[in-house]
């Protein structure tokens, strides 16, 4: 008897009790579906981290001051350890600030040859933008210099970027992210318009090319202005810098650049003992790749949980197949009496079990792909195709494995006893 006949007979068997077959399939369906969705969620958060790393700009270091008594990032060990002195922090009760003087010192090529660009950053919190009646609070309001754009990989879609001349001239100009433009201007052209930030007039001179979300935040929800203008208006003249963003010459020069930054700033802050530094140099890419590897552990864990539900589904298949074999004992006897071989009966029930899990698998893949279209706990799932193949293959394997015992039981029934069965 060939596979086609076995399939025909098996389908007939499955359709004898549609509800039961459907419920059994549901077990496999949920198993396969959850493997796909959960792996996609894990994968999605990895992808988000990856994007965030790219969004930080390549070869970027961030210098932040350490607040007194604040432990920072675990004494430098928190982001990969290696490269001694690359990242130092400490605890100190007196709080000193990062200033534009530090930025100037870092700009000295003789002291820091591995730095390509340095940008001071003031992040102003709770700034509200107003334009002809429309108001909007951008999530980031950044005062910086002209190098910031290239360090952070921002480009201009429309209009022009401000220059360091604008910074020197303390011009109140602004570059708007797409999200800000949409919320403030709708479909109108923002170029040349005057927007009020907390009541202060700024001239819109450019619109940034959309970068999308980096997984954690919308990178287009940003306003970038010259740092001098922010110091004049919103932050105050002596406002400390929130951070200094530094771009290294190349990825390979990151460690050297971090060392140079540390040396220069220890000098400007008059600190001799590096362990007493009142600032820290963060290589955020390293930090995030640590997060990324944590994430892949998370993905494996999610996959394992889902795989267990697949196993449970398989046991469901076995359970139902055992019931089916008992129920159809007489039918098995009849088939044997009219000439079915052991292998025919084995084939029939094995195909039935595999069909159950196969159909469950196909529907599960469908469900998993649909489920992965939705945002789950803030993560946009990214389907990992290996998980689809794996889940489907395992489902069929589960059907085969868990179908074998019941099918073998059916095949070994002795015809006279099977015929006598009521």
């Amino acid at each position, binding site marked *: 008897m060939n596979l086609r006949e076995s399939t025909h007979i098996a389908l007939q068997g499955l359709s004898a009790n549609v509800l039961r077959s459907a419920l059994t399939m549901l077990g496999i369906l949920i198993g396969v579906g959850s493997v796909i969705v959960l792996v996609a969620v894990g994968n999605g958060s990895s992808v988000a981290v990856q994007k965030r790393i790219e969004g930080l700009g390549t070869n970027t270091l961030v210098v932040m001051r350490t607040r007194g008594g604040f432990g920072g990032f675990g004494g430098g060990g928190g982001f990969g350890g290696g490269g001694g002195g690359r990242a130092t922090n400490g605890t100190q009760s007196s709080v000193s600030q990062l200033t534009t003087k530090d930025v100037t010192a870092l700009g000295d090529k003789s002291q820091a040859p591995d730095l390509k660009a340095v940008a001071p950053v003031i992040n102003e919190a709770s700034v509200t933008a107003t334009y002809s009646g429309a108001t909007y609070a951008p999530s980031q309001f950044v005062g910086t210099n002209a190098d910031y754009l290239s360090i952070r990989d921002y480009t201009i879609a429309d209009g022009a970027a401000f220059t360091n001349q604008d910074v020197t001239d303390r011009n109140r100009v602004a570059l708007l992210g797409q999200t800000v433009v949409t919320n403030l201007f709708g479909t109108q052209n923002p170029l040349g318009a005057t927007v009020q930030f907390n009541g202060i007039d700024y001239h819109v001179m450019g619109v940034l090319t959309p970068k999308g979300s980096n997984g954690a935040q919308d990178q287009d929800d940003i306003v970038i202005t010259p740092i001098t203008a922010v110091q004049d208006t919103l932050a105050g003249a002596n406002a400390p810098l929130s951070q200094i963003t530094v771009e290294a010459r190349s990825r390979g020069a990151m460690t050297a650049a971090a060392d140079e930054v540390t040396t220069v700033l220890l000098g400007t802050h008059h600190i001799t003992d590096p362990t007493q530094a009142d600032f820290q140099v963060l290589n955020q890419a390293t930090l995030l790749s640590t997060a990324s590897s944590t994430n892949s552990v998370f993905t494996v864990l999610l996959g394992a949980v889902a795989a267990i539900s697949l196993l449970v589904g398989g046991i469901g298949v076995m359970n139902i197949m055992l019931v089916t074999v008992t129920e159809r004992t007489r039918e098995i006897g009849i088939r044997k*009496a009219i000439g079915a071989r052991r292998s025919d009966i084995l084939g029939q029930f094995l195909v039935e079990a595999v069909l159950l899990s196969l159909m469950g698998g196909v529907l599960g893949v469908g469900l998993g792909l649909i489920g992965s279209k939705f945002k789950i706990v803030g993560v946009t799932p990214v389907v990992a195709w290996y998980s689809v193949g794996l889940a489907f293959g395992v489902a069929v394997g589960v059907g085969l494995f868990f179908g074998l015992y019941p099918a073998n039981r059916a095949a070994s029934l002795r015809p006279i006893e099977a015929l006598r069965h009521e």
Partner: protein
Amino acid sequence: MRPVLLALQHVEKRYDAGEISVIALREINLAVTRGEFVAIMGASGSGKSTLMNILGCLDLPTRGKYTLAGTDVRLLDDTDLAAVRNRLIGFVFQSFNLIPRTSALRNVELPLVYAGVKPRERAERARAALQMVGLENRSGHKPSELSGGQQQRVAVARAIVTDPAIILADEPTGNLDTTATAEMLDLLDHLHGLGRTIILITHEPDVAMRASRVVRLSDGRIVSDEYQTPSAAMHPSSHR
């Protein structure tokens, strides 16, 4: 003398039930030639079902020899026995034993499926068999949509579709009313008339009267083995 189709020599069947062993058949010697219509009679417990199981290759004798169409059945393994049942034996059971939720045609086709016959030829032969039992217009019906008499005729069609050497009918009329019984016996007569070898197991004397030979069993032994002139049908046969 026509050739011997099946022969039982010194056959004994013993069942072991824990400490005690029950002897269901002892010292059975029986030879059936091609084209015979044999009735095996006996009260319940006389061993006729055991004999039927052995004749039908559903069970093997504990001792003795069973030769079917020249083959010593004891030498066959499970797979060969399945093939023998498929090709040489056509079963008709008391309780019809059709596969539920499956059309009459598909039921009749089933032995051919296991024989590996191609679908087209299968359907043709199954239709011809249904026609022979007068149910060609019921081929799409499921067993639950057929009367008892009709179901048993489907079973007969299934028994003859492989063109077997013997038809083994185990109390085929046991679950049928008088009219259906008469029709069934006429059908068996008809098949016998076409040259089929039929072994009929029954406890009803008037059913056994239709056979040309009656073998009586009692306590697992053959107590008589007589040839007879088959009686006429119980009802004047309008059938065929």
